[in-house]
């Protein structure tokens, strides 16, 4: 099966399904809701899903993908919103404005929202992916993330659009080492996109084996500690590595491309430079500076505009615009520092909490834990029960390392964090973190497990 972007008789670009292939897909039919103007699908990884989505989108309709694990109530609520939105839009505009793909955000930084991505922008994004990674009929992508997650637009949709093959790994089996090892051994993929949890799963599954068939590894969705990156570089010795930054609302917008040696050895990965066509600004208290190679050193919040930006959110049956600035820049709520020709991530603005009068960025705390190399993943939160606020951090053991004690971790973290930013309570998880529908650590479930200990 292939998704090819062409310009049809209508002004709106189309997604054509033809020559690409999906292997290892799940053959389940699910309780989808579909009509001429819309389709709401559980993101079961199979050919039927891609075919039906593309059909709806090419008709100018709205296709929404929800996690396979979504409850009936969630599916119904999304279906009601999408149906109402699609019908009113169809009556008002017909199909001339083109299809809309609706993807839920992960909810890891707030309440999940249904992001409306226009097909016109999607087509441009797929074209960028094909060009940058040289996707063609020989490309074999190992798709690890769920297909309701925006990362699948690159590792699945863009690969299919170039006539390549997608190995659709079942998202529910990402911690089944034997299953992942079989996929790597049997299919010998050439491309893989990982988030921190799936990279850990691959390193664990490989058990020291190497896979020189992989030519490109894309890391997105979070920070990976240097020891894990070193293990990844050994696992994929012939690969070029790419650190990609973005959000569902703007899709990918920054990329840093590194050799295996650079990827393994760099202490902290830069966010990279703007992808062609993307505009990035740093906003320091209202003073805005465009990001380019000759820019002066500065720091501030990242503001982004991309050619493949979403139109807004589908909410209560209508389109709520993105919360952009007057000049249509999307505030990422991420802080970054531009210095010495590199853009470095500094944490998320909305994860700053006040602890006993001091500001602490929970993400910096998690990153400090990961940088020690003593943990796999880390999730921090604040409790404000009496007598005072306290910082908690749950962590997993790294797949490539040995179990660590709470004291060792505290000592290592205290080398880089001030006392007020140190976690007061550590919670070790023997296995991997429970993940949400987008494959990211599910903080509410993690907290509830800790509370029930």
């Amino acid at each position: 099966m292939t998704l090819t972007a062409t310009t049809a008789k209508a002004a709106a670009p189309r997604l054509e399904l033809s020559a690409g292939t999906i292997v290892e897909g799940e053959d389940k039919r699910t309780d989808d809701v579909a009509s001429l103007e819309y389709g709401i699908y559980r993101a079961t990884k199979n050919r039927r899903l891609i075919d039906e989505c593309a059909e709806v989108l090419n008709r100018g309709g709205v296709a929404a993908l929800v996690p396979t694990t979504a409850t009936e109530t969630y599916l119904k609520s999304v279906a009601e919103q999408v149906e109402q939105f699609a019908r009113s839009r169809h009556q008002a505009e017909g199909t001339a404005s083109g299809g809309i793909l609706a993807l839920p955000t992960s909810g890891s930084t707030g309440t999940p929202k249904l992001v409306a991505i226009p097909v016109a922008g999607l087509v441009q994004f797929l074209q960028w992916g094909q060009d940058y990674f040289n996707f063609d009929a020989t490309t074999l992508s190992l798709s690890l993330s769920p297909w309701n997650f925006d990362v699948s637009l690159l590792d699945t949709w863009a690969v299919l659009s170039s006539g390549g093959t997608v190995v659709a790994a079942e998202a529910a089996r990402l911690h089944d080492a034997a299953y992942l090892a079989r996929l790597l051994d049997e299919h010998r993929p050439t491309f893989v996109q990982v988030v921190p949890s799936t990279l850990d799963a691959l390193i664990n599954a490989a058990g020291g084996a190497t896979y020189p068939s992989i030519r490109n590894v894309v890391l997105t969705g979070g920070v990976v500690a240097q020891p894990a990156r070193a293990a990844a570089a050994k696992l994929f010795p012939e690969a070029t590595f790419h650190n990609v930054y973005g959000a569902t609302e703007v899709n990918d917008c920054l990329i840093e491309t590194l050799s295996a040696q650079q990827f393994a050895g760099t202490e902290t990965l830069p966010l990279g430079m703007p992808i062609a066509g993307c505009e990035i600004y740093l906003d320091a208290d209202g003073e805005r500076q465009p990001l380019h190679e000759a820019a002066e050193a500065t720091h501030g919040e990242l503001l982004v505009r991309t050619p493949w930006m979403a139109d807004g959110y589908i909410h209560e049956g209508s389109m709520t615009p993105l919360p952009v600035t007057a000049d249509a820049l999307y505030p990422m709520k991420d802080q970054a520092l531009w210095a010495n020709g590199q853009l470095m991530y500094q944490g998320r603005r909305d994860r700053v909490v006040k602890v006993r009068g001091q500001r602490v960025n929970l993400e910096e705390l998690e990153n400090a834990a990961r940088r020690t190399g003593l943990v796999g993943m880390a999730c921090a939160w604040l409790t404000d029960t009496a007598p005072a606020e306290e910082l908690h951090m749950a962590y997993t053991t790294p797949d490539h390392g040995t179990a660590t004690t709470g004291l060792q971790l505290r000592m290592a973290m205290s080398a880089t964090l001030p006392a007020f930013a140190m976690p007061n309570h550590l919670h070790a998880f023997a296995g991997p973190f429970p993940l949400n529908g987008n494959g990211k650590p599910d903080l509410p479930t993690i907290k509830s497990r800790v509370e029930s200990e």
Partner: protein
Amino acid sequence: MPTINDVKQYIAETFATDITADQLPSDVDLLSTGILTSVTTVQLLGWCARTYKIPINTIPINPDELKTPEGIAGFIETNRTDSVTA
């Protein structure tokens, strides 16, 4: 049981449940490792006062002394007014 063992036991059970009393070094900096905070140090002082009958409202307290288990044990030994058994 020496006082320092009691101190470690209390700290491990109350403030750092991820660490056992045996793992806690006598000279570990409890503040920089996040085990104690300004608020829980007050809670610890309350425990010292109750357990060892230390008149914490009438004696000078140097917070630097309370940063480590051995410092806390020294503070207790210096200021306790309960009857000490060997």
